[in-house]
């Protein structure tokens, strides 16, 4: 890869969301903005190859994309003299007749924040929010997103078209939500980012490089969110949670591609840099004294990160944090995790009772981790036959090859 195209690729990833957010504000149209930015990247590819990359590639691209946008807007206006398709942007286009040359003042730091809220609007389906966020803010291509989510590319492209049409026709606003909507909307954005991360983190099938990209992208988006909305402690909470989970990425699989439990992981392979940043963020977030979901999950991950060996893990602290989490989140899955922590701090018997209580509602019947957790405790209690039944049930409920392999290994152990 030449130096110019390397610069271009880097700029593409880093600047895409920022530039497109400004273009969308100026034109009011996702389609025009995207088209113009694509053209700008194409012309950068052509120009930089021969003349070398400019000193400030981001500014270069903004200026060129802006010019392309003006052309596109003019074209669109001529085309729409008779047939007007741009109802959504009509208002903005009127004030855009005599555009000033692009300069620093054209760019508002809020643009990206607005765009995040539009892409994660609750009126869009969750799949559409994820796709739109990755495409628009992350600059991932349709084919990259399709590969990451194992979705046929035409389906994904169609999903994006529908989402953009809905934004335009139903007039989903391109603005930072009003104060009374803010906390719900911010939670929706955080959920989309965490979903992107989990999609990349869970070791299901698919292109592993793309999956790693998803995690990196989610972490990058969370950083943007922290930067743009610093008063909300759940933002650093979410970022910390993802960093701390991501720090264990290398240790989660052994050289044979087999899944390694937290207990058995080689902790020297944990990413210290991510851990340190994560720990710092958790501390800062908790100091704001508005402790909620992501901060608590991050705090739990932090306790694991601080333990030099599995034996040194402060399980009592983890149990206390899960108790706090259960107070604000009554899901059976949280109760299950609490039970697993109790098993480690107060004994397997007690843990098993709580695991079974968590599953009593029947809501976890089809959740493979419930059966895997039960099986694990039964195994530790030497109740082999029951453990084998539970492992078998867990295996039948996961489609993930790596997890199946791990559970089979355990099943063989108890069956011996």
């Amino acid at each position, binding site marked *: 890869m030449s130096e110019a195209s390397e610069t271009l690729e880097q700029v593409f990833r880093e600047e895409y969301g920022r530039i497109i957010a400004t273009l969308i504000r100026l034109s009011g149209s996702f389609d025009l903005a995207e088209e113009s930015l694509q053209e700008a990247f194409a012309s950068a590819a052509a120009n930089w190859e021969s003349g070398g990359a400019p000193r400030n590639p981001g500014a270069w691209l903004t200026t060129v994309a802006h010019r392309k946008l003006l052309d596109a807007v003019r074209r669109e206006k001529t085309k729409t003299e008779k*047939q*007007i*398709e741009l*109802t959504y942007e009509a208002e903005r286009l009127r004030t855009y007749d005599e555009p000033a040359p692009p300069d620093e003042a054209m760019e508002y730091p809020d643009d990206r924040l607005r765009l995040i809220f539009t892409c994660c609007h609750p*009126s869009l389906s969750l799949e559409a929010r994820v796709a739109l966020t990755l495409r628009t803010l992350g600059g991932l291509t349709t084919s990259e997103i399709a590969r990451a989510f194992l979705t046929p590319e035409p389906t994904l492209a169609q999903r994006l078209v529908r989402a953009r049409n809905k934004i335009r026709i139903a007039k989903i*606003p391109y603005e930072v939500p009003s104060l009374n909507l803010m906390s719900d909307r911010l939670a929706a954005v955080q959920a989309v980012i965490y979903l992107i991360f989990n999609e990349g983190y869970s070791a299901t099938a698919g292109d592993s490089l793309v999956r790693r990209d998803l995690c990196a992208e989610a972490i990058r988006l969370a950083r943007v969110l922290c930067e743009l909305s610093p008063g909300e402690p759940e933002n650093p909470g979410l970022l910390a949670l993802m960093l701390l989970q991501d720090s264990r990425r290398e240790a989660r699989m052994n050289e044979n591609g087999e899944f390694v439990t937290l207990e058995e992981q080689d902790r020297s392979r944990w990413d210290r840099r991510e851990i340190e940043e994560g720990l710092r963020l958790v501390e800062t977030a908790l100091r704001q004294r508005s402790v909620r979901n992501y901060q608590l999950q991050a705090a739990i991950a932090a306790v694991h990160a601080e333990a030099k060996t599995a034996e040194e893990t402060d399980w009592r602290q983890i149990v206390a944090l899960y108790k706090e989490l259960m107070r604000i989140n009554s899901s059976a899955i949280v109760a299950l995790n609490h039970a697993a922590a109790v098993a480690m701090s107060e004994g397997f018997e007690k843990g098993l009772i709580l695991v079974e209580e968590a599953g009593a509602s029947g809501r976890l019947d089809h959740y493979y981790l419930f059966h895997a957790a039960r099986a694990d405790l039964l195994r530790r209690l030497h109740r082999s036959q029951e453990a084998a039944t539970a492992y078998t049930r867990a295996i039948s409920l996961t489609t993930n090859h790596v997890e199946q392999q791990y559970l089979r290994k355990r099943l063989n152990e108890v069956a011996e």
Partner: protein
Amino acid sequence: MKYMLLIYDKEQDWAKLSEAEQRQVYGEYMKFTEGIIASGNYLAGAQLHPIATASSVRVRDGKELVTDGPFAETHEQLGGYYLIEARSLDEATSIAARIPSSRFGTVEVRPVVERQAEATA
């Protein structure tokens, strides 16, 4: 930007309310309507009679077919509507959330086609 707010709720539940309770909901509706008239969002609105009074019309092969009942038998029934003017979907949904029936039924928010071209877009 115009939006249609379609109010769906269960007719049987409404029938089960006492007269005093019904009066209270009507009072809330009046206050809500006055509120959106004062704020300039109101364009039109009406309550509909129950689906027992509904007729459906289809013309097939030039022949007019009139049948008893609503277009679709659903869990919740269309009981009324408001046509409003709002700046964005967020404004429209926040108005919808103030409709008394949103607490026990569902309000569907639909953007209204305002230009010929948009229908084909």
